[in-house]
């Protein structure tokens, strides 16, 4: 269920419709940021940010620091052999 892929917001297509171009590792698509844009975080602030896209909508912001944390977690685990 729920195939969603990470991409980076690269440009605003239509501010009124909350549409932006998202680059999904070389595949570009116009994606709705309707689930992300709020009065404190207007659409202009999303350019350059990473999001996860599902069915043409950015589902949520991808927290880059948290991603790194997940990736490096194994290095911090030292199970005695």
């Amino acid at each position, binding site marked *: *269920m729920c195939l969603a892929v990470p991409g980076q917001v690269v440009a605003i297509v239509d501010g009124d419709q909350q549409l932006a171009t998202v680059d999904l590792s070389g595949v570009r698509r116009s994606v709705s940021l309707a689930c992300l844009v709020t009065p404190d975080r207007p659409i202009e602030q999303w350019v350059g940010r990473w999001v996860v896209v599902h069915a043409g909508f950015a589902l949520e912001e991808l927290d880059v620091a948290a991603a790194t944390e997940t990736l490096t977690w194994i290095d911090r685990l030292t199970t005695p052999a």
Partner: protein
Amino acid sequence: MKFVTEFRDPASVAGWVREIAHLAQRLDRPVALMEVCGGQTHTIFKHGLEALLPETVELIHGPGCPVCIMPRGRIDDAIALAEQPGMIFATFGDALRVPGARGSLMQAKARGADVRVVYSPLDALTLAQTHPDRPVVFFGLGFETTAPAVAMTILAAARAQQANFSVFCNHVLVVPALEFLLQASGLRLDGFIGPGHVSAVIGTDPYQAVVDRYQKPVVVGGFEPIDLLQSIWMLLLQLVEGRCAVENQYHRLVKPEGNSPALAALAQVFTVREQFEWRGLGSLPRSGLAIAPAFAAFDAEQRYCLPSQASEDSPVCQCGLILQGKLKPWECSAFGRGCTPDHPLGACMVSSEGACAAYYKYGHGGPRSPMAAPRRFAEASARPPLQSELAR
């Protein structure tokens, strides 16, 4: 692909497999964990993760595939809609091959219905705008991940007063399905990997009541191999330490409170149905969404007259038991014989994410092809060198 490939790093995967083995040893009893989401099932099969786990850690593949759990009667309704005069029926590709009593949408298309595959519900709205003289219905299906996209589309349609657009709503909710599984008698499950993308919308808080009530740990997990292995490790750690909590492995995306604009759109556009039929599980209370009265103009169920006839699955089908982890797909007498992905008898064989279809497709276990790994590795050592080796 950035933020995907890194989560498939073989060295890191090997590290997590080692850590899981250590915990499984400390636990010293067999455990059964369920990944709720079909997307996670997909990852597990695609990357052969089950084979990397210790024998005492068993994965049960959950009901989290919105296509599989769609009752046949709803597919028949979709076909009836698609066959309305002048209709453009827009759907995600997933639903095209799912058979109802009167065949699939793909067969309806062959008979002349105008069925279009779209990537986004917004594309269906665009179809309505480019064909103002024709009715356009979008086949809304999916869990809480997909429902906000459809809600936002209905809101956009309302703003644009797009009178020829409506949605056939079949959205379902994850938590009621979890509760159903937990209530079922004789369930042997020690914990759940929560569906990461659903949780990006609903957050992790809704699982707390389930954990408190049924005393089974839930770890909300992502969809890449490292995500799933970490989630399994976190569940095992809870079991080793005798804890039972909601934890969040997928914290790069999931916040405890979820996504508030998405939740607001869901609350505005949908209401919860008293009952909704799940293929394989039966009718579950408060488990499905309908379009709210304020948006009735965009509700295909209200605009068109639908046959809405229940149609039973084959009596030999054991999907209910499989979803509860009481039976393995190959233990069903129809598996691979009467029931294949081309001719599914039940929900679990319908989409590639259903447990039966996944086992069938990837031939893992079961009568088709036991994974004779040791022999293959012996042969592999006698194989010709790979390109990378030739380069040296």
